[in-house]
């Protein structure tokens, strides 16, 4: 019970249930009725309360994201987006959800029944596990596990298994191609993602997400831009979002691995995907955008900054989707192995070297380190993007124009 009670969110509910004398100072009103001997009961009730709250918050945020994404993409595409049902069309995703639930649940004859049913569950459940470890404010986290970074990276990679299971179990050739593409891509992008996260860990000197946030005197997006870019691109790939949406690839594979799913099984995939976007954005905010830290001279709680940055990162993902066409599978693989992998290695090398020179940097030294990182960032992006990329991808690109027929 000890570590859980570090959390302010946990403590405040726990103390309103339990008569534990240690939390007299936390209570707003003295309504506690469970005696100290039954602390295990208060503990369990608190845990159930927060599980309930977090799952529902995640589900509602998915509905909000579906609405927000459709509205925002509407704006990008010079049209209105959903605006009929409810104020500003806010109830549209609810109508969508009801529609999905009432659809006929088709199970293909050729499917492998058990795996077919398990796959959508495996897509959704792990994502719920990311939300409790994210520090939303200085004390607003549910649990602060000491290996937060590793935990987050491990949990986010489970969905590649789910995608493969769905693709395999459907017994559909579009699905299996989507599933195999997913495994190739997701595994490749895990590596640059993990290595660039190591740069964050070196700076923080800890795997705990709270300490990662507290260590960011200069936000990591400014301190190590190379790591941020690699992490952002790799998370876009992990989320199967455009331009890396080859696993679904509407114009090629119909719906990829979820071609044969219908009704709420499809709904779960949809849910899992949007929830993964939200969770990944929260991870990016924590790792690179200094989480709940904001300008300290403003009397605004950290939670506000966290949510503002969170919405900003989600908007960037939506912007990607509205802008980019899809990459081809071989281009995606060479981007991972011949581009991002090396860039993330360069990033971790520079961070490690500068940290070796100044193990306990003062603010002046931090500024010098930032400068070094920016030089490396711009230099390596230029070298990889302009000089090496034609040789690496084997894609010769020339500036093309039309000629005109002679009279």
């Amino acid at each position, binding site marked *: 019970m000890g570590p859980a009670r570090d959390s302010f969110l946990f403590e405040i509910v726990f103390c309103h249930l339990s008569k534990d004398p240690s939390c007299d100072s936390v209570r707003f009103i003295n309504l506690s009725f469970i005696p100290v001997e039954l602390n295990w009961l208060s503990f369990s009730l608190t845990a159930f309360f927060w599980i309930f709250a977090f799952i529902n918050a995640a589900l509602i945020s998915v509905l909000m994201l579906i609405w927000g994404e459709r509205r925002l*993409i509407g704006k*990008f*595409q*010079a*049209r209105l987006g959903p605006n009929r049902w409810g104020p500003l069309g806010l109830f549209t995703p609810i109508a969508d959800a009801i529609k999905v639930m009432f659809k006929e649940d088709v199970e293909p004859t050729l499917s492998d029944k058990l795996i077919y049913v398990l796959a959508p569950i495996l897509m959704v459940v792990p994502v719920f596990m990311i939300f409790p470890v994210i520090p939303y404010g200085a004390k607003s986290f549910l649990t602060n596990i000491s290996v937060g970074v590793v935990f987050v990276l491990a949990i986010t990679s489970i969905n590649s298994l789910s995608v493969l299971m769905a693709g395999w179990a459907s017994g559909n*050739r*579009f699905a299996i*191609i989507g599933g195999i*593409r997913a495994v190739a891509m997701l595994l490749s992008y895990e590596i640059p993602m993990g290595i660039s996260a190591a740069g964050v860990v070196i700076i923080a000197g800890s795997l705990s997400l709270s300490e990662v946030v507290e260590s960011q005197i200069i936000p990591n997006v400014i301190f190590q831009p190379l790591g941020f870019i690699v992490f952002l691109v790799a998370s876009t790939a992990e989320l199967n979002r*455009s*331009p890396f*949406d*080859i696993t679904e*690839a*509407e*114009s*090629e*594979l*119909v719906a990829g691995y979820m071609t044969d799913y219908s009704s709420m099984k499809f709904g779960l995939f949809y849910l899992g995907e949007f929830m993964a976007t939200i969770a990944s954005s929260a991870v990016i905010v924590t790792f690179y955008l200094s989480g709940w830290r904001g300008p300290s001279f403003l009397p605004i709680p950290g939670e506000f900054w966290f949510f503002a940055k969170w919405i900003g990162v989600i908007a960037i993902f939506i912007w990607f*989707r*509205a*802008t*980019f*066409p*899809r*990459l*081809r*599978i*071989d*281009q995606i693989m060479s981007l991972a192995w011949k581009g991002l992998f090396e860039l993330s290695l360069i990033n971790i090398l520079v961070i490690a070297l500068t940290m070796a020179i100044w193990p306990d940097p003062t603010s002046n030294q931090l500024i010098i380190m930032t400068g070094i990182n920016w030089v490396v960032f711009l230099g390596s992006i230029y070298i990889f993007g302009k000089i090496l990329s034609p040789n690496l*991808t084997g*894609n*010769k*690109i*020339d*500036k*093309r*124009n*039309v*000629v*005109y*027929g*002679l009279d």
Partner: protein
Amino acid sequence: MSTELVTMNIGPIHPSTHGVFRMRVTFDGETIIDAEPIIGYLHRGSEKLAEERTYTQIVTLTDRMDYTASMTNNQAYILSVEKLAGIKPAERGVWLRMIAAELQRIAAHSVAIGFLINDLGAWHTPLLYLLREREKILELFEMMCGARITNSYLRPGGVFMDAPEEFWPSLNRFLDEMPERLNDIENLLTDNEIIVSRTQNVAVLDKEDAINASITGPMLRASGVDWDLRHRNPYDFYDKVSFRRPLGTVGDNNDRYLVRLHEIRESLKIIEQCLDLIEPGPIKPDEVPFLVRPDEGDSYVPIEAPKGELGFYLVSDGGISPFRCHVRAPSLMNLTLLRDMVIGYKIADLFVTFGSVDVNMGEVDR
């Protein structure tokens, strides 16, 4: 490593088959080994139906062949009828149908580019930008003849009604705005790293193959052959306007995109010249009867439709309806080389190539 080949039926119901096209494709992993196009899912027997209708009624059938380019279908058919019946069209009618045809070309190329980019995986953004421009053209058509898609605007001898007063300022506004919109589209797409690396040097079609397969239209010009019927064999008043023919240099998907984009600019120039040259007058000669009854004989007048050479071969036995009507559909001819173009490329390239050929299943199956 030993691999197993996978054969898949792609279509007829599929998001990017532009209708009801079907391909039986064999893959080795991601690489295409074989692709067999199967057509006929949208066959409506238009050619047979034409034998049972009068010459004026057939105009409505032509609308429904290539439904993204109804005006040019009308034009090809009407030119054939005029040649068959020996009708001399009224001048203003000809100018009006040239304006309509060029507007239609812009609309059809917008659709082609938009859906090509969609096949590349863009989330509808460039498509919707282009459809917004097409919408303005459809509104112009609505002013001209009351219909947006299935226009049936042309008649033997000219057009069935003059464009109203409010049409001309609207057309001028469209001509003023369109070049800027095209610049926006070009800034967004032409140098886009992803689009360029996805389309360059993919599905290269060289000159000889293209000519041997009787491929026409932007696809042939993208392979570098300077063949445009508006220039080579001018019909209507195309000999009185000047325009350039954009040609590709390599013949890949990127060139096919570029050629279409630049043809839109040339079409805008043609419309501007038409506006200078058009004069008041009758839109249709009074002596053309409602029931055209040509003498025995046959006629074929090919025109440059947005997708390539389109022509109606009409045989008359002296009756009020043609004895035989055959359509030389550019979409069908352009589709014949699809198999040779995509073999050896990746799954994703198949759909991009199919999009860059720009076929319309309504025209392929008729």
